[in-house]
């Protein structure tokens, strides 16, 4: 239930919310530093601090810290926050607790774009070893795929009134693109197939600063659009008819939400591959912790919680000291699912969306 949209929260609740944000911020900083300290190469914590403050100048470690770990940690923060926020938006718009960033089929569209390049063209241009394909090629093809699905969704959302129809159509598009990807996979050779499977497992450590700049720009644009949707989302909680009476243009509102979600999740999928689960789980945790449905609180909360979860997943995926990496997609699921199960059992039920 909405408590008068953040205007007359009593001071106790206000205090609790502030404390929670403070706590999350502290956890965030600790995890960010932990993420910088863990990796396949052993670098002592004191050395990390020294490098960050400029006191130490070890060349090898400096390169590893600033060229590998820092961009990876920043990517984790961007991915976690973007996916969580777009998941929250989707759950509210569709009034469905199972909705996530990929419910519109945007990630599936991105996968199709990448599959076409890796699997489809692989046969014609013969790519034994895909490393020859530059990173940008993959990013652009994923973006193109995601953009195509977004166009389709926009077109439909302008014509179809019923939100449930849009949800079902989105899921159908997702299934159709996945089916097409399956066909491509079926006809591919093992080596390229493996390359695609690895892409579909997600990766945070692949971005260089140039790519990070582009991704960050996309995410910032997505977040700015999100800010515009907060009021709309709060109104939508009361039902579409009620929001209409509040003067919200439903079609325009939906378009804005779909656009920001697609930019957020599409960009992350393009740069990091599909990362599952974060987008569905984090909004629920945010609602439970903050005990509110107000998006003025839920959006920053999801943003922080998402970053925290993603940083945690990244730390775990390194299996510290082993020199190996687990696919980050699996870690987010393995890490996230027990959290949500605990939350459900502890609270008996998820906080309802509206």
């Amino acid at each position, binding site marked *: 239930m909405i408590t008068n949209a953040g205007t007359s929260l009593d001071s106790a609740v206000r205090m609790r919310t502030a404390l929670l944000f403070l706590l999350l911020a502290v956890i965030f900083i600790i995890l960010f530093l932990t993420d910088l300290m863990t*990796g*396949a*190469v052993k670098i002592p914590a004191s050395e990390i601090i020294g490098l960050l403050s400029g006191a130490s100048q070890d060349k*090898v470690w400096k*390169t*590893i810290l600033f*060229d*590998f*770990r820092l961009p990876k940690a920043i990517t984790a923060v961007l991915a976690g926050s973007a996916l969580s926020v777009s998941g929250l938006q989707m759950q509210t718009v569709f009034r469905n607790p199972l909705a996530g960033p990929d419910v519109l089929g945007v990630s599936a569209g991105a996968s199709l774009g990448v599959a076409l390049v890796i699997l489809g063209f692989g*046969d*014609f*241009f*013969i*790519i*034994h*070893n*895909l*490393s*020859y394909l*530059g*990173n*940008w090629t993959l990013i652009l093809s994923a973006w193109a795929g995601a953009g195509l699905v977004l166009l389709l969704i926009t077109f439909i959302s302008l014509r179809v009134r019923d939100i449930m129809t849009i949800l079902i159509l989105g899921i159908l598009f997702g299934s159709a693109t996945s089916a097409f990807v399956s066909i491509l996979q079926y*006809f591919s*050779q*093992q080596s390229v197939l493996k*390359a695609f499977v*690895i*892409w579909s497992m997600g*990766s*945070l*450590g*692949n971005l*260089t600063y*140039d790519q990070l700049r582009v991704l960050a720009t996309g995410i910032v644009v997505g977040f700015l659009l999100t800010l515009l949707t907060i009021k709309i989302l709060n109104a939508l909680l009361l039902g579409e008819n009620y929001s209409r009476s509040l003067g919200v243009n439903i079609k325009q509102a939906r378009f804005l939400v779909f656009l920001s979600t697609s930019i957020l999740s599409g960009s992350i999928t393009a740069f990091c*591959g599909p990362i599952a689960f974060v987008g569905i789980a984090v909004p629920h945790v945010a609602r439970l912790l903050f005990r509110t449905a107000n998006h003025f609180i839920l959006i920053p909360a999801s943003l922080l919680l998402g970053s925290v979860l993603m940083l945690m997943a990244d730390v775990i995926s*390194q299996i510290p000291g082993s*020199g*190996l*990496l687990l696919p980050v997609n699996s870690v987010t699921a393995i890490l996230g699912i027990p959290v949500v199960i605990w939350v459900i059992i502890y609270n008996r039920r998820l906080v309802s969306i509206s």
Partner: protein
Amino acid sequence: MLLCCIVFTQCIGKADKRHNGPDSAATDTIRYARGFNYRESGNCIVITVKDPWQQANGIRYHYMLSDTFPASGIVDEFTCRIKTPVKNVVCLSTTHIGFIGFLEQTASVTGISGRSYVVNETLRARLDSNLVADVGYDENLNYELLLKLKPDVVFAYGINSSVTNTIIKLTELGIPVVMIGEYLEKEPLAKMEWLKVFAAFYDLEEDAAVKFDSVATRYEGLRHMALKAGNKPSVLLGLPWRGTWYVSGSQSYVAHLITDAGGKYLWEHLDYNESRPMALEKVYEFALSADFWLNPGEARSKSDVLAVDERFGKLPSYKNDKLFNNNNVLNSAGGNAFFESGVVEPDIILSDLIYILHPQLLPSHKLKYYRKLQ
């Protein structure tokens, strides 16, 4: 099993026309390869292929070859009788084309797998005029086309046990399949020694043994020369994919080549022969100390390498122009001769590598398979 015994006795029972050449003792000895056994028994050669894929354990395929057989026949999925010389064969790997080309029997090839991979010019011309068919690959073999081609034998390979489905299916269709496991051999000369298997199908054993011995002698000579080089430059291999570097172990074919060329493989302490994933930053830490960087994926230029990850621009091997790739001979579609004729020219590959790592040892050599990335 019973059938199998009968066939073997048959084999021994026949007159030994073949067992009279003075050279036959030489063909009996397998010097490097571990993946197959080769023995003469009566007038028939029995080739036993052992564990032809990575996880195989105790799997044996037996091929009995003789020109005295009235016709080829399949005993079961593990055993075939083949009448030699074969005149009509299908190759499912480009390395098979390399072996057959070396024996000058390319005309016998009527089917290949993946036309874009083929570099052999005779074969490409025959592909273009539809004299040779593309039979598909892995799970997508075109069985109807194979039936129509009626090959005397299909040379196949397996990445894992799923290849047994292909073998069973082809066996049911009455097409003899021969498993070739040369890719599992760790040493370049062991790989090339599979030439003796192919030669037996064409009744060219003696010829192949002589050719193999001369290549082996050259290779060993080069290796000993490179061993005497004073310094051992360290070598980084490969290119990452999505933040993970698949690192070949020190027992792998490429690692053997580098050691034989007088180089020091960066991961000489990793005692395995396949590739395993390693985190990018770990590889980078090693890479910062590498003098040379070889086989960076499909890259044809330094900018290809940067497109994958611009951080590589900081590596000393990159900055000092010590970046070489094994894709100097490509067909128009990108098929690489290194994986085709390279298998029967380990001496030339080794010369390339020695020239790269120790140019003073082979000053007049011209690179064949390797190119310097610009």
